[in-house]
């Protein structure tokens, strides 16, 4: 834990930011922030820069008046404009610090709006309470997924499907990889993937750009999550709120959690679980990928042996990266995340006795620890670039944000293939550094 009373350059983002990444993975869904306009502007900038995509977010644009007398009028006006402009199939409303502090009753405002606005009478509107002065984007993301199933899941006929919930923000390429895997397995119609940003946040350039990017988990599938036989959540294991638990409590379908399939062993865990669920063998293509990963591990083991790495980013991604480092014989020297959770500490400790673990960390903490001991490589978000520049240690960029390099939307870290690419990137960063000296 940080001993400092202030946070400087946090290693996490705020809750509303996380909600955008969940809502953007739903078909035709527009996110809207109830709060000051700056919140939406800042997130748009932050995410557009990372994904290199237009990331539209509505705002109720609260001003002094709305703040003092309540923001209902602004929110309704904002919703009306959003519907008129985008014709969304659903709207996700995330609150911000300001809306939470004045205590606006979002559920009540939505009720009133539905009565006043005939266009919105049947439009799914998903409220989620996300004051940014508490929690992190990891929590915001988990809370938005929970809000989606709370609002939309409807009991119906059993569908014999499995809900595959992506519990941690991944790249569009990672989600595409999972979808390709389900396809190759011949079971894509036996799973409901929630959420799906594979196309919405990595959209093709086409003749006539749609107002809302195509793709995302279909709304009827979100509703149908209540009728599946099981929920398998990958990542998001350090969150109190999560969609799987809600579906289990309210609709009686079993909820299972697995680590993200990052590195050999965690991908093995995922694959073996998938074999159980599908009662079908992993397709040959992926067995070959696994063999190639073993080969890559052997090929690079001498380069990475004993190399001391500082890892930082989202909890579940950091867990996966740490595990991969131990698999190849590198040393996770510092392991840091902006999110605070005892489960994370225990999980890292169980993976390796080596690292200094920083939970709820900021980049001042991480920098201080990097300065104290020997660190050969940095592995994490582009927010580590100041440490990289000052300490002259190469940074391998993984996760969100990646603001100073291109390709974040195409970066694959999942599965055997993703692990191989990570090992290549780590080794090449070292070789590049060595060739400079």
């Amino acid at each position, binding site marked *: 834990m940080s001993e400092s009373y202030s946070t400087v350059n946090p290693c996490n983002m705020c809750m509303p930011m996380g909600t955008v990444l969940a809502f953007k993975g739903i078909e035709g869904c527009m996110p809207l922030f109830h709060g000051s306009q700056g919140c939406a502007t800042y997130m748009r900038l932050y995410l557009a820069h990372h994904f290199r995509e237009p990331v539209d977010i509505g705002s109720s644009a609260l001003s002094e008046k709305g703040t003092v007398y309540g923001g209902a009028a602004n929110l309704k006006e904002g919703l009306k404009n959003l519907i008129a402009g985008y014709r969304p199939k659903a709207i996700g409303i995330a609150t911000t610090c300001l809306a939470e502090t004045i205590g606006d009753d979002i559920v009540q405002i939505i009720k009133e709006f539905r009565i006043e606005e005939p266009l919105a009478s049947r439009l799914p509107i998903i409220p989620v309470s996300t004051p940014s002065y508490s929690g992190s984007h990891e929590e915001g993301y988990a809370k938005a997924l929970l809000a989606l199933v709370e609002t939309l899941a409807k009991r119906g006929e059993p569908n014999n499907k499995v809900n595959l919930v992506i519990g941690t923000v991944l790249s569009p390429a990672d989600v595409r990889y999972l979808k390709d895997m389900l396809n190759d397995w011949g079971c894509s119609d036996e799973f409901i993937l929630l959420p799906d940003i594979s196309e919405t946040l990595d959209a093709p350039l086409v003749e006539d750009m749609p107002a809302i990017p195509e793709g995302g988990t279909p709304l009827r599938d979100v509703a149908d999550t209540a009728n599946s036989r099981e929920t398998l959540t990958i990542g998001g294991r350090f969150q109190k709120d999560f969609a799987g638990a809600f579906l289990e409590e309210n609709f009686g379908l079993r909820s299972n959690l697995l680590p993200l399939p990052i590195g050999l062993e965690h991908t093995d*865990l995922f694959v073996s*679980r998938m074999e159980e669920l599908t009662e079908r063998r*992993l397709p040959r293509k992926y067995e070959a990928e696994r063999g190639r990963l073993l080969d890559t591990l052997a*090929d690079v083991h*001498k380069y990475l042996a004993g190399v001391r790495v500082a890892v930082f980013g989202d909890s579940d991604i950091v867990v996966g990266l740490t595990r991969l480092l131990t*698999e*190849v*014989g590198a040393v996770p020297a510092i392991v840091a995340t902006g999110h605070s959770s005892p489960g994370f500490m225990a999980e890292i400790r169980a*993976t390796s006795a080596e690292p200094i673990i920083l939970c709820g960390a900021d980049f001042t903490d991480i920098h201080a620890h990097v300065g104290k001991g020997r660190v050969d490589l940095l592995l994490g978000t582009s927010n580590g670039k100041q440490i990289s520049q000052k300490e002259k240690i190469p940074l391998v960029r993984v996760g969100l944000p990646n603001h100073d390099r291109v390709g974040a939307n195409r970066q694959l870290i999942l599965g055997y293939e993703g692990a191989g690419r990570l090992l290549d990137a780590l080794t090449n960063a070292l070789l590049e550094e060595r060739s400079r000296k």
Partner: protein
Amino acid sequence: MGGAAKAVSLVKGFEELGMEVVIIGTQTGDSEDYRKISCIVKDGTVIVDDANPLELRELLQKQKADVLVAGVKERFLAYKLGIAFCDFNHDRTTSFEGYDGMVNFAREIDVSLNSPVWKLPKLRASGLGAGAYGNKRELIAMHESRGSAANV
């Protein structure tokens, strides 16, 4: 594998590390070199001249070698067989000569021989069927045991 002088010098090096030489060979050695080699190795050591990849593979497996010292061409054969490797040829960047060189040599052998990559499961535990279910439990047990071991 390599030139005769290197092969001879390594025998002593491995001995000092408490390791045993099970195969020794050169690409360019003459009969005098092989006479010298035969004097310094223990009984049971295979002495081979200019082995081709097929012969080398067979010998490595038959003699249950843990580490191969050779050049780049042989490196990836060793890796494919799950055998550690030390480069004593073009790719070597540290000196093996003298006291410091011996430390470098020991470190190089240690790094490859004791890498965790050789302990990773070559076969994946399947999630299918009754027999496979046991495998899955093993996989989870492994997952947890690594945890508890690190906690101690």
